[in-house]
């Protein structure tokens, strides 16, 4: 099917806002983490910085390194979110071919993340 300019703009806006939200939150965490680290509230880098539960717990305790790592994880997740938003958008427009393309890319990204963290 052919996508109308309105549909194109709606999808583009969804991608824009999804990215911006993730980036603003990530930047806020990075600034907060750096300030905490400068104030001396930081431990050495945790051995497994991708274990989310301990990372969040340490962040809530005011550990600057953990807050920075949380911000970086959020930053690294924004492209994954972008692929997800586009896939859902194309699915909603019944553009099956490109919804499938997004799904394939998302699957490969997940494989890479699982291999990396496993």
């Amino acid at each position, binding site marked *: 099917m052919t996508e109308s*300019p309105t549909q*194109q*703009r709606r*999808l*583009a*806006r969804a*991608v*824009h*806002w*999804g*990215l*911006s939200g*993730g*980036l603003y939150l*990530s*930047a806020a965490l*990075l*600034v907060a*983490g*750096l300030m905490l*680290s*400068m104030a001396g509230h*930081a431990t050495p*880098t*945790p*051995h*497994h*910085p*991708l274990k989310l539960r301990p990372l969040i717990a340490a962040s809530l305790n005011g550990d600057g*390194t953990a807050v*920075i*790592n949380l*911000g*970086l*994880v959020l*930053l*690294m*997740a*924004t*492209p*994954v979110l*972008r*692929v997800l938003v*586009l896939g859902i958008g194309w699915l909603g427009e019944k553009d099956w*071919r*490109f919804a499938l*393309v*997004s799904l*394939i*890319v998302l699957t*490969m*990204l997940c*494989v*890479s*993340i699982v*291999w*990396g*963290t496993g």
Partner: protein
Amino acid sequence: MDPSLTKLAILAVAGVGAGALGALLGTGGGVFVVPVLVLVIGVPMHQAIATSIVTVIAASSAVAGGNVERGTANMRLGMTLEIATALGAICGGLTAAFMPPALLEGLFAACLLPTAIVMLRQRPGEGETEDAAPVNAVAPDAARQPLAADGRLAGAYFDPATGGWVTYRVRRLLPALGVSFVAGNVSGLLGIGGGVFKVPALHLLCGMPIKAAAATSNFMIGVTAAASAFLYFGRGSVQPALTAAVVLGVLIGAPIGSWFGHFVHGRFLTRLFALLLVATAVQMLVRVWTSGVPIP
């Protein structure tokens, strides 16, 4: 490493410059970050590569939304090529097992130099068609957007530098998929988003105008880099404070570079990109030279 405030400030400023150039040229700026980290701050190479990969994501995400809304980034083409890139990134481990990274770098440096010459010699506007009736440069009205040339992957965008809509078709998708595979394959190894391979492929092979090529590459490199970044991050190679400083700088610089890119002519971008290719090739050759692996 417990970085001082001075080091963090240097990295943040370097991040602004890398983000601006990376967003302007569609490469993410990783190639500018690595030398600063290694030569100025004294970070070991593998940690510099890990930091560089994360900053590429920052540069990509900071401007991708705007490029998508303006229509310069071709989402469908980007996502299609991303299949090959992600596959290449996953297969990167295999390549690393069979070929030393320095040998790979030597090979790619040998590819980048001729590509730079081809880009410099290319005629301006090749592969693109400007709308016969340019619209007002001040207010690009989406309702007056011309229909993209035929084909699902074709695109159209408003260029403030020329004051008209630019439409283009996408050619030679198969070779571009091959280059995207290679770009994904080496991006994790070399600490770059692969934009130095993607932009020439999109511009020279697919026939996209240089601005659309840079914006589409920018859109793609975030996804490519994310695949490698999680691996580096999981291994603990990313230095949190240093990376945070560069990322914050990149988040400021990337929108500036992207904004600047709308008002410069394609020819200027092509020449600047050719210079970047030469600089990257030299950087790779220096690393090969210092590692002691003979250049093939």
